[in-house]
């Protein structure tokens, strides 16, 4: 059994079918890059896996936990899968440390002292142990995104979903975030990332998914996908980069 099983997933927004039957199985420790034009459905797919969008057909399961639209199942799933957003979405009224502590305390009921230790550890892991008491608006975009990663990691997920996590960053800040992700990958974290960083996808990922018009158009190891695209759409997409 795979870690994440996405089977025949369909999603419509009104008349517009954005996902037209997606099948992907993800093994533990895999790092998967999802690429494609905007509007190809790649962000929607990621949001479906985290239950931020409901699916119309098909099924998604993570480590045996089914995605069902009731609170109990959603919570169980979200405890297994962390998500990082393009816009960071840190809680602006809380310090970096408190950002990392909050969900541990209110969702997992971890005692405060324990949550604090975990928060320190996770902030250290993303290289921001010294920013524990800084508020989000005192941090650069890259630092904010690293806090967001620490926040997700503190819930000890078995997989992380990354939705264009470097797209909102100034170019010089992209690498510090990618370095953290690379580190996580080497430690064996299962990662699904929607990304425009083709170099990163080639260097770090185990498989690349090319989405086009709501379908998985091509899928394979980065060597094959990038070096030897099979379809004109992927050729054109790669040419555009």
């Amino acid at each position, binding site marked *: 059994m795979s870690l994440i099983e996405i089977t025949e997933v369909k999603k419509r927004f009104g008349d517009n079918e954005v996902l037209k039957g997606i099948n992907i199985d993800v093994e533990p420790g895999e790092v998967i890059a999802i690429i494609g034009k905007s509007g190809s459905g790649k962000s929607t797919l990621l949001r479906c896996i985290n239950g931020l969008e409901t699916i119309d057909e098909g099924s998604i399961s993570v480590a045996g936990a089914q995605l069902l639209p009731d609170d109990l199942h959603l*919570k169980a799933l979200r405890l297994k899968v962390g998500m990082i*957003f393009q816009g960071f979405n840190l809680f602006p009224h809380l310090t970096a440390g408190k950002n990392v502590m*909050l969900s541990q305390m209110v969702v997992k009921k971890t005692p405060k002292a324990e949550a604090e230790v975990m928060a320190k550890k996770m902030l250290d892991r993303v290289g921001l142990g010294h920013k524990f008491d800084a508020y989000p608006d005192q941090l650069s975009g890259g630092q904010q995104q690293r806090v967001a990663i620490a*926040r*997700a990691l503190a*819930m000890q997920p078995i997989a992380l979903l990354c939705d264009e996590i470097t797209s909102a960053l100034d170019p010089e800040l992209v690498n510090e975030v990618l370095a953290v992700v690379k580190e996580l990958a080497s430690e064996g974290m299962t990662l699904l990332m929607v990304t425009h960083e083709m170099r990163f996808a080639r260097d770090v990922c185990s498989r690349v998914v090319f989405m086009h018009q709501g379908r998985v158009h091509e899928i394979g190891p980065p060597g094959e996908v990038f070096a030897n695209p099979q379809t004109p759409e992927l050729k054109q997409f790669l040419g555009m980069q």
Partner: protein
Amino acid sequence: MSEFTLWDILRNLLLATRWTIVLSLVSFVGGSLVGALLLLLRIGYNKAGRVFARGYIELFQGTPLLMQLFLAFFGLGLFGIDVPAWLAAGLALILWTAAFLAEIWRGCVEAIAKGQWEASSSLGMGYIQQMRYVILPQALKIAVPPTVGFSVQVVKGTALTSIIGFVELSKAGTVVTNATFEPFTVYGLVALIYFCLCWPLSKSSQILERKLNVAHRNH
């Protein structure tokens, strides 16, 4: 009839101003409490609660405060009680204030970025936890300037209670006018006293708002 000096007029008006202040405070505090309950219904899970709160707000924002005062006054009278004006005045103003504050605060809750909901969802928080730890603390902060701003409307709203016979600043103005036949001076002074009550509130609301905008730019 005795002669009234300017000081006599002012003293009488200032004595009545106490009741304007008391009624304003009662209305604002009471209205905040009821308004908070309404807000929770308005943004809550329960469909019936949402519909009720919407109807309530629509009703109180869509009808004159004066009519609400009349209805409170004569409506309470239906229960066979001899209704004192202060009771009807306080009740109507509290209910009226609650409607406006609930709507202002709902705007603040809705102003919180969608990403905050999504991030807290993805961390496994439920609706109540999201509200309590993520959304409301932020919404409360941006709610301060418009809430202070609305307190000006409450102070001005108390003037209408004179019409159902509550003796506060406006009523005193009428009484003193009838005694002195100096409407220009008396209503001028009444306006000035209201101004002295309201202007500091208006000004602090503006200053708070500006501060908040500056703080936001740092994000």
